[in-house]
C-alpha cells in the first residue's frame, strides 16, 4: 500500500484537481453536526432539550449535573435513539463514499454502490438465511453475515467475469458484468422467495431498507468494516483523480491501474455490504450526495471523497429523522424518504449548477 501511495505522488501533482476550500469543509461539518443534534433531539417521544442535555452532562460526568429524564426516557435516548443516529451516520457516510469511489474508479457518473451486484448478492444471501436457516439459528441474527457473504461473492464474480472478458482495461465491461451478475442473483433470490411465501414479508421489509432500532449491537457490527473501508479509500483519494483521467493516462503516469482499482473496489464493496447487511437496501444516497457536492463545490475526487463521507452521514441522519417522526408514532420506510426528499433537492442542484456553468 505504501509503495503504491509513494509511486503516485508525482502523477497526482500532474493532475492538479481543486482541493478542499475551507468554507466547504466548514459547511459540511456544520451540516453533519446540525443533523446529529436534530437526530438526537427529535423523535416520536419528546424528551425535551433540557432533559437530553442534562442526561448528556451526567454521562459526560460534568460535576454537579444529574439527568432529569426518567429511567424509561434514559433507555429511549441511550439505547434506542443514540445508536440509531450513529448507525445512520455510519451507513450514510459509507454508502455515499462508496458511490463516489465507484464513480471515480469506473469513470461512470451513474454508478452507485449497488452496481457491481452487491445489492443483489446481499439480497440473495439474506433471503437464503431467512428461508433456510434452522430455528435455533434465527435468520434475523444470521442475516447480516449471510448478506455480507452474498454481496462479496457477487462482487468477486463480477470482477472475474469482467476481467476475463477484457483483461480489466475497459470499465464498461466491468459494469456490464455487474449488470449480468446482478440479474442472475436477483432471479435466484426471487425464486427462493417464491418458494417460501411464508417468510416473504420479512424479505420484503429488508429490501425496503431502514435503520433498525437494534441498539449498539449493529453499530459494533458495522463499525470495523466501515472504518477500514473509509481509511483505505481516503488514503487512495488522490489516485482516484488520476484514474478518472483514463486507464492509459493513469498507467503512463505510473499508476498500477489494476491493483489500485481492485483495492478501491474491494474496500468500497466491503463497506457497502456491511451497511446493506444491517440496513437493507437504501438507494439514492450513493449517487445523490457525491453529485450534489460535485455540482455545488466543483471539487476533484481528492476533496470529494472526504466531503462525501461527512455530507452522506448528515443526509441519512436527517432522512431517518423524517422516517421516524413524520407519521409518529408510525414509521415510514427510509428508502421512500431518501428518494422523496433527495430527488427534488437533486433536481434543484441540477438546475442551479447548469445556470452557474
Amino acid at each position, binding site marked *: 500500500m505504501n509503495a503504491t501511495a509513494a509511486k503516485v505522488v508525482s502523477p497526482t501533482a500532474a493532475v492538479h484537481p481543486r482541493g478542499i476550500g475551507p468554507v466547504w469543509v466548514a459547511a459540511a461539518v456544520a451540516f453533519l453536526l446540525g443533523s446529529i443534534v436534530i437526530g438526537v433531539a427529535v*423523535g*416520536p*417521544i419528546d424528551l425535551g432539550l433540557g432533559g437530553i442535555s442534562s442526561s448528556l452532562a451526567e454521562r459526560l460526568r460534568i460535576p454537579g449535573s444529574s439527568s432529569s429524564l426518567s*429511567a*424509561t*426516557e434514559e*433507555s*429511549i435516548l441511550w*439505547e*434506542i*435513539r443514540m*445508536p440509531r443516529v450513529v448507525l445512520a451516520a455510519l451507513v450514510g457516510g459509507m454508502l455515499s463514499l462508496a458511490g463516489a469511489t465507484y464513480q471515480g474508479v469506473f469513470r461512470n457518473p451513474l454508478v452507485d454502490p449497488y452496481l457491481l451486484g452487491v445489492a443483489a448478492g446481499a439480497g440473495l444471501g439474506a433471503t437464503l438465511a431467512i428461508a433456510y436457516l434452522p*430455528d435455533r439459528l*434465527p*435468520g*434475523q441474527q444470521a442475516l447480516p453475515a449471510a448478506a455480507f457473504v452474498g454481496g462479496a461473492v457477487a462482487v468477486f464474480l463480477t470482477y472475474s467475469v469482467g476481467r476475463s472478458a477484457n483483461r480489466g482495461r475497459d470499465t464498461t465491461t466491468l459494469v456490464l458484468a455487474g449488470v449480468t451478475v446482478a440479474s442472475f442473483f436477483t432471479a435466484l433470490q426471487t425464486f427462493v422467495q*417464491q418458494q417460501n*411465501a*411464508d*417468510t*416473504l*414479508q*420479512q424479505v420484503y*421489509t429488508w429490501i425496503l431498507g*431502514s435503520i*433498525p*432500532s*437494534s*441498539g*449498539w*449491537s449493529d453499530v459494533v457490527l458495522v463499525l470495523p468494516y466501515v472504518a477500514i473501508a473509509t481509511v483505505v479509500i481516503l488514503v487512495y483519494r488522490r489516485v482516484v483523480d488520476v484514474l478518472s483521467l483514463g486507464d492509459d493516462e493513469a498507467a503512463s503516469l505510473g499508476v498500477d491501474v489494476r491493483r489500485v482499482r481492485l483495492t478501491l473496489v474491494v474496500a468500497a464493496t466491503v463497506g457497502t455490504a456491511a451497511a446493506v447487511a444491517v440496513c437493507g437496501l437504501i438507494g439514492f444516497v450513493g449517487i445523490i450526495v457525491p453529485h450534489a457536492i460535485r455540482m455545488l463545490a466543483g471539487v476533484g475526487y481528492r476533496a470529494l471523497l472526504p466531503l462525501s463521507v461527512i455530507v452522506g452521514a448528515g443526509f441519512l441522519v436527517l432522512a431517518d429523522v423524517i422516517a*421516524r417522526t413524520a*407519521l*409518529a*408514532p*408510525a*414509521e*415510514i*420506510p427510509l428508502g421512500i424518504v431518501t428518494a422523496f426528499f433527495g430527488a427534488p433537492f437533486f433536481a434543484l442542484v441540477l438546475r442551479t449548477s447548469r445556470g452557474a456553468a
Partner: protein
Amino acid sequence: MLRSSIFVAGAIVAAFTILVSGAAAGPAAPAAYPVTITTAAGKVTIQRRPARIVSLSPTATESLFAIGAGRQVVAVDDQSDYPKAAPKTTLSGFTPNVEAIAAYRPDLVVASYDPKGLVSALGRLGIPVILHGAASNFKAAYQQIRQLGMVTGREAAAARVIARMKAKIAAIVRTSRSRAEGLSVYHELSPDFYSASTNSFVGKVYAALGLENIADAADSAGTGFPQLSAEYIVAASPDLIVLADTVCCGQKPSTVASRPGWDRISAVRTGSIVRIHDSIASRWGPRLVSFFRAMSAALARL
C-alpha cells in the same frame, strides 16, 4: 306391498342420511341450486352442489372442513396447513398457475387473493370462483363461513359453527373483560415492529376483550397495519405483548426481552408475552376461538 315397504325403507334411509349429514341441524332443507351469493368481489352463481372444490385460501380450507364440506374438497394450496386432513398440494394462492388448478377439474375454487387475473382466467374456463378476501371484522368472517355453507349445501352446519363460535367468544369475553380493564396490548407482526391496530381483523379481538391497542395511535391512515417506532413502544410500555412472528421470524420472549430498552416495558417485566402461531393470528376462520382462548389464558395469568 313389497314395493311399498322398500319405498318406506328407502324413505327412512334417506331421512336418516339427511339427518346424519345435516347432523342435528334441525330442519335440513336441501339446498336449492343454483345458489347465488354476493361477495365483496361481486355475485357468484353455483349451478349444482360442488364435489370438487379447490381452496387456495388457508382460511377457507379451515372453514370448509369445520362445516363438514371437507369431503367435497379435492385440493388445497401449499399454505393450507390446517386441518391435517386437508389434501395439501403444491398449488399456490400467491403465484397461482391456472393450468395446474384446472388440472384438478374443480367445480368451485375458493381464493382469498386475486393475483394476476386469477379469477377472470378461471372464469373463462367456466370454473366459478369465490373470492373471500381478508375479513376486516367478525361479521364479515361469519358471513364468509355462512356463504361457504350455502354453496356447499352445508348451510345448517355452517350456521351451527357460527353459533358455536359466537357463544364461545361471548363466554370468553364475559370472563376476560374485567381482567383486561385498563390494560394495553402490542401485537407484533414482524421484528421491525409492524403491528395491527383496531382497524385490522386481529385488532378487533383486542377491542372485543376491552384491551387498549397501542398501535391505534399510529394508524392515522387507517391501514390497520402501521409500523411502530421502537421509542414509542418502549414509552407506551404495553402490559401485554402478543408475538405473531414466532414462526416467520423466530421471535420469542427472550429475544424480545433482549431488545435495547425493552426491559423497561411492563409486559417484559411481568413476563406477559404471548406466543400465538402466525397462522392463527393471520386467518379469520373458525380458529378465531383459539386466538380468544390464548388471550384469555394470558389475561388470567396477569
